[in-house]
C-alpha cells in the first residue's frame, strides 16, 4: 500500500500532557507529523486536534484506533483530502524597498489573493490562505524575485464534507451514556 496524506481529527478533554499522549503513538511507529493544529472546539472544554501525516491507510487506521482508546480522547477519525474542505494560512515578510523595486505589485496581489497585514519603510507582511501548494507557490515566487525575510505556515484546519456529523454522533453517544448513569 502506498503512502498518502491523511488528516486525523481528534476531540479530547483539555488536560495537561494530552499532546504527549497523542504524539507518542506516532513516535512508536516512526510516523512524522506533517502539520499539527490545536484549538478549543465549538464545545466548551473540548479541544480539537488536526494532524496530517503521510502513511498507508492500514497504518493510519491502527494509529487512529490507538489514539481513540486513550482515556482522555473523546473521538478520533481520519480522512483523505477528497473528504475535506481544508485550509492553511501563511505569512510572508519581505523588504519594502525590494518590493517597490518590482514596480507594480497589483498583479501579484490579485493573482494570489494576498492581504497586506502590515507595511512600513523596512518591511511588508503578506497573508495568504489556501492549500499547501498555493501558499508554497507564492513563497517560491517571492523567493525568486524579492526574497523572503521570514515565512510561517500554519497547520491544516479542516471540515468534513460528509453529511454525517461525527461530532454530533459522539455527543449523542455521550448523552446516552450519561443518562444511563443518572
Amino acid at each position, binding site marked *: 500500500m502506498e503512502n498518502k496524506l491523511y488528516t486525523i481529527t481528534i476531540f*479530547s478533554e483539555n488536560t*495537561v500532557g494530552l499532546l*504527549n499522549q497523542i504524539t507518542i503513538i506516532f513516535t512508536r511507529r516512526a510516523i512524522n507529523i506533517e502539520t499539527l493544529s490545536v484549538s478549543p472546539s465549538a464545545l466548551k472544554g473540548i479541544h480539537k486536534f488536526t494532524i496530517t501525516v503521510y502513511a498507508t491507510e492500514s497504518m493510519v487506521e*491502527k494509529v487512529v*484506533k490507538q489514539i481513540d*482508546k486513550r482515556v482522555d480522547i*473523546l473521538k478520533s477519525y481520519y480522512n483523505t483530502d477528497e473528504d475535506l474542505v481544508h485550509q492553511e494560512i501563511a505569512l510572508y515578510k519581505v523588504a519594502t524597498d525590494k518590493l517597490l523595486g518590482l514596480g507594480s505589485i497589483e498583479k501579484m496581489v490579485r493573482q494570489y489573493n494576498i492581504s497586506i497585514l502590515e507595511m512600513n519603510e523596512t518591511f511588508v507582511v503578506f497573508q495568504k490562505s489556501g492549500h499547501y501548494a498555493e501558499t508554497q507557490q507564492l513563497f517560491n515566487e517571492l523567493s525568486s524575485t524579492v526574497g523572503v525575510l521570514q515565512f510561517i505556515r500554519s497547520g491544516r484546519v479542516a471540515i468534513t464534507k460528509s453529511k454525517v456529523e461525527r461530532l454530533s454522533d459522539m455527543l449523542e*453517544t455521550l448523552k446516552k*451514556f*450519561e443518562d444511563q448513569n443518572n
Partner: protein
Amino acid sequence: MEHKKMSGSQILIESMIKEGVDTIFGYPGGAIMPAFDALYDYRNRLNHILTRHEQGATHAAQGYARVSGKTGVCLVTSGPAATNTITGISDAMLDSTPLVVITGQVVAPLLGTDAFQEIDVVGITQPVTKWAYQIRRVEDIAWAVARAFYIAKSGRPGPVVLDITKNAQIQQAEFDYKPCTYIRSYIPVPEVNKDQVALAAEIINGAKKPYALVGQGVVLSGAEAELKTFHEKADIPAAWTLLGASAMSTDFRLNKGFLGMHGNVSPNMKTNECDVLIAIGMRFDDRVTGDLNTYAKQAKIIHLDIDMAEINKNVKADAPVLGSAKDTLPAITELLKPAKHTEWIDSFKVYDDQEFDKVIRKELYPESGEMTMGEVIRKISEATQHKAVIVTDVGQNQMMAARYSKYSQTRSLVTSGGLGTMGFGIPAAMGAKIGAPERTVCMFSGDGGFQMTIQELGTIMQEQIGVKMIILNNHFLGMVRQWQEMFFDERYSFTEMQNPDFVAIAKAYRIEGTEVLKRENLDAAIADMLKDDKPYLLVVNVEKKGMVYPMMPAGACVTNILLGD
C-alpha cells in the same frame, strides 16, 4: 452536608479503603513520607508489604492482581523509586493487569526545577500506562483515586499512575468520596452488536473445521464457564495463548494445548488447516502468529475482543465481535447449532503423537542422563495435584513450566508474557501467595532471573510468605544459549554463569532450602518442600544444554516447527 477534614494522606488511604484495597506493596522515601506516616495508623486495616526494591513491589502487585482478580496497589516515593517501577508498569501494560501505582512527588512549587528526587513521572509513564495523572492539590485526591481504580479495572485492564505532590499529601480538605462509574471520553466495554454476533455465529455454523484460540480476555472477563459451553455446544477444539493458560482445564476434552513459539505442535499446525479461526480475547502476538503473511490465510477469521484497537491490528478479521467475552460468547453460543466435528478433532492426534514421541517423552520421563526441566515441573505439578498457582520467571523455565504444568482451575499461571521480564518470578510469586493464601504457589525460575530480584528473599523472610521457589539451574542463560546454539553457530557469548550457593543465600534469609544434584533425590526433596506452608527454595541442577522444543523460529510460518534431534 459537612464532611470531616483530613490530610491529603488520610484522604488517599481512606479512598483506597473505599475501593476495597486491603494490601499495598510499597517502599517509603522522602516525597511519600506523609502518606506512609498516615498509613501507620491504618496498620490493622491495610496490610502493607515492604519489598526490597520498587520493581519488586510492582511485580508483587501484578502477581496479587493476576490470581485474585483485584487491582494491585503500589506506594513508592519520587525520583528513583518512580523510575524503578517502570518495568513492572510496562509489564502490566502489555499483559493487561490492573495496577494503581502511587508515586510521591516534590512539592508543587518545586515542579520543573530539577528539585531533589524530582522526575517527570507522568511524562515517563504515559507510554506505558492506561492513564497517568499528577495530583497537585489535596482537593483532587479523592476524585483522582476513584478515577484511577475505575480505569485500571474496567474494560481492558491496565496500569494507572498517580503522582501526588508532597504538599497535596499534607494539606487538609473535607473527605467526600464518590466512586467513579463513568468517564465521558471512555467507553470501557463496547455494547454487543447483534449483527456482528449473528455474522460470527453464521460463519461458525457453516464451518467444517472450526478452531478457537483462547486468550487472557476470557480470564479477565470471568468467562471461563461461558467458554466451555460455547465449545461444547458446537464441538470446537481450542488452544490457548501463554496468558490464556488455565482458562480451560488441561483435561477438558476440547483443550488441544498451547499456542506459539514453544507451544504444542498440533495447535500451531491446525491454525493453517482450519476453515474458521475464532480468536477469543487474544491479540495475535508475534510469538503466536509467526509470519503474518502465511498465517491462517485459508481461514475465515472471527475476532472477539473488548479493545477496538486490537481488531485488524495484526490479523484482519472477517467478523470482528466487539465486547466483553462474558457477553459476546453466550450471545454467539445461543445462535450456534449443536454440531459434531469428530474427524477434525481426531486429526489433532497425529501431531500430538509425533510431539510426544520426539519431544515430550524424553523431556518428562528421561531414564538416564542429567535431570531435565520438564521432569521437575511434571513431578511438582503431580505432587500438588495440579492445583498450585504456577509462577514463572522468563526463558526456558517459563516455557517449560507453561508446557508441562497441568491446570485444574483458572488463574493458575502467572507469567510475564508480553514484556518477558526476567526477575518477575520471585516478587510475582510473593504477590500471588498473598492474593491467594489458600493455594500452594510454586515459582519456577532460572539461575539468571532468580538473581535479578534475589533481594526479595528479604521480603519473604520478613513477611513469612509461603512461596515454593524452584531454581532450574543449568548454569546458563538458557534461552539465550539455546538461540546461540541454533542461530549463532554455538558462539556462547556471555551466557555461562558462575553461580553462588543459592541454598546458603536462602539460609542467610532464614529460608529453608535443598539442592538436588541427582535424580534419585528429587522426589524426596519435592516432598520436603511441600510438607508445610513455609517458604522454601529448591535448587535442581538440570542438564546444562537442555533445549525447549518444539520451536517455531521467530518470524517463521506456524507450520515450520523444529522438533530437535
